[in-house]
């Protein structure tokens, strides 16, 4: 390698650009008026970006606006916007004063809390375990990803097979311990527990991967220093590991909260919100109103209320991320 190349590599590591300028070196003068630092006009850049922006707006913003309009109307899935009656915020009032909505909201909260923290605890535990050198470590990692990789239709069919009938494996297992006739899907409380456990089962691989990559970024020297100072495993875990992975933790919590609140197939395929609406979450309720009861206005109103709450939660957690300051 030539001396120039070596010097170039060193400057690249310091963040200095090929042209000799880098973040530490301000350019002698700013871009010319109407032109960016790339030497192209804003107009040209806008023209290049416009088709993608238009597509994004059509695909993302238009459906949101359309759905919001529907939430202010009294239509069915087949009613065109100019055909439906405008009811203003009546759908929102109907939803917020409906006992069914609050029942679904309560279970959504339980489902989300169990889903987020349950999968995080299991995922983190497995990520810590897999950092140790054990035989077949890679094979374990692949196997542990399966619940997340396998399509939800397959998983829910398998879980139904495991619990639905008296001959299913889990009821048989419970009967060995003297608990006959355990009705996992028919008892409202058991069905709620089952659905939550199912959610943790399909979600922990995601958390495991998030935590594994977060743990990999922790400097091992810190652990050695803690060991020298006589810190116990628990003190190391709570005083070093958790704070150092907190940024990734908050991000994974935000994502998993959104996944749990918006999770339709997990519940719909396993229990369809039953028995007797015990496992109905807000997203399932929104679907039932919009596509079974053909009350699009109420269904979309529920969806927008959910969105509003999710945005608030995300903002709160995001602020926590910003507060985290790792030296």
């Amino acid at each position: 390698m030539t001396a120039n190349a070596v010097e170039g590599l060193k400057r690249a590591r310091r963040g200095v650009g090929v042209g000799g300028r880098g973040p530490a070196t301000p350019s002698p003068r700013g871009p010319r008026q109407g032109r960016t630092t790339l030497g192209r006009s804003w107009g040209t850049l806008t023209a290049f970006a416009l088709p993608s922006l238009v597509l994004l707006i059509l695909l993302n913003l238009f459906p949101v606006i359309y759905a919001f309009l529907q939430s202010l109307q009294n239509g069915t899935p087949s009613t065109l916007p100019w055909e439906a009656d405008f009811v203003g915020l009546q759908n929102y009032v109907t939803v917020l004063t409906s006992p069914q909505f609050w029942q679904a909201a309560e279970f959504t909260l339980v489902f989300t809390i169990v889903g987020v923290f349950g999968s995080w605890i299991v995922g983190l535990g497995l990520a810590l375990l897999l950092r140790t050198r054990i035989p077949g470590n890679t094979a374990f990692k692949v196997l542990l990803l399966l619940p997340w990789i396998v399509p939800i239709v397959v998983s829910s069919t398998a879980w139904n097979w495991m619990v639905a009938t008296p001959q299913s494996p889990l009821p048989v297992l419970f009967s060995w311990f003297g608990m006959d006739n355990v009705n996992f899907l028919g008892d409202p409380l058991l069905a709620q527990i089952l659905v939550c456990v199912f959610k943790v089962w399909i979600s922990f691989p995601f958390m495991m991967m998030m935590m594994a990559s977060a743990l990999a970024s922790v400097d091992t020297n810190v652990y050695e220093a803690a060991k020298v100072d006589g810190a116990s495993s628990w003190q190391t875990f709570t005083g070093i590991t958790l704070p150092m992975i907190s940024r990734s933790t908050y991000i994974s919590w935000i994502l998993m909260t959104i996944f749990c609140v918006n999770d339709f197939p997990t519940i719909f395929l396993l229990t369809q919100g039953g028995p007797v609406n015990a496992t109905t979450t807000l997203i399932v309720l929104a679907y039932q109103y919009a596509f079974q009861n053909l009350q699009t206005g109420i269904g979309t109103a529920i969806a927008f209320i959910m969105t509003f709450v999710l945005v608030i939660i995300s903002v709160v957690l995001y602020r926590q991320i910003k507060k985290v300051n790792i030296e």
Partner: protein
Amino acid sequence: MTSESKANGFTRRGFIGLAGAAAASTLLAACSPGGGSTGGGTGKPIKFWNMPWGAPTAFPQEDKRIVAAYKPKSGLPAVSYQQIQWANFTQTFTTAVAANTNPSVSSGGGTTAFLFEKEGKIHYADDVIAKVWASNGIKDDFLPGLLDTMKTANGYAAVPYNLDMRLYWYNKQLMDKAGASLPTDWDSFEAACKALKKIGVYGYGTYSGAGAFTGGHTLVAHMINNGGGLFDKDQNPNVVTDQNIQAMEWVLGLVKNGYVDPRSATYTSANAYSQMNAGQFGMIWDGAGTPANVNANVASQLVVGDPLTGPSGQKGALYFPNNIFMFKNSPSIEGSEAFLNYYYQNMKTLWTKKTGIGLPPLKSIAKAAYADDPNATKIIDTWQPISKTWGAPGSNTVFYNVTKVDGTQPMIAFAQSILGGNTTAKDALTTLQKALESA
């Protein structure tokens, strides 16, 4: 650079030309009608959409063949065929109607025609029935009372196409083993359940879990059997009636006595059929196709039960006349009607070739298809004449308000509460009434 690209023998212009040809062929393929179309015809073909009513291969193959063989009269358009999947089919139709790309003639869910009829999108079949079918015999060939189930205040919104029945089957072997007599009324049905319980078998087999609506259907069938039902003569929900309370108290009694599998409330159809295969259900309330869903050994033992006489002295059950309808915005109404007539004159093979479609609407087809099937013949002869639609007891038709109960959560929750046994008949019906009123 120019010499380099020529040396490769593939220039940038060549690449752009190839990409353009690929895009054009993709666009043309997307524009072509799916599923094939008839030959000849004048003007733009009209579209016929059909749902997958039978076996995945046999039904669409035969259906396409029937449509492809259609030779329209001079001046009438040809017909293009497309099969629509059940997944999100309501959205498929509603977006097509909104975009004005809907078919001219179509089948759909049992209430699809009535949803669009309410919105003024349907072309009524009165002319076809009164003028064409009255003269060629098809009108009189419909099973008793069937055609009028499609009648609305403005006319026939659709024509019956295939029937989905609700009835009960019994397992001959298990009934003999239990020494149970064949039921003829509610008391003898309960007696049969009692006998079956002694050999560890459930007498009242049903299912109302994820994706399963049969449990709710069966409960409504019992209401109709007792002279009740869900709707009054004004087509509004009216479920808290003495007849319905009596019917549901009967079922709750069966649940309490242990004649109903406690997990039935959450069984899928697969769960219920596995229980049949395991010999756990001596009788099951289901559709006409139950033998096709269990193993051969159990299927050979299944026999259609006799309609039960309810406490009110009546016989009754629930059925769903699936139908075909025409849209008003067809490029050729005359073409739509001509095709509809052709299709009904030629659709017999969908049954005689055992494509898996539900029961036929016409007596002549039933006779031709089920001469060697005593169970199907019994269903047509004994269950169809006493069956009513969702509209009972107020009417024996299908109408828009039926969408409030057909596969909806209030009905599922109602069925699960009754089959779970943790309610009273009046409470469950009152909850259902409130849910239907707010829907």
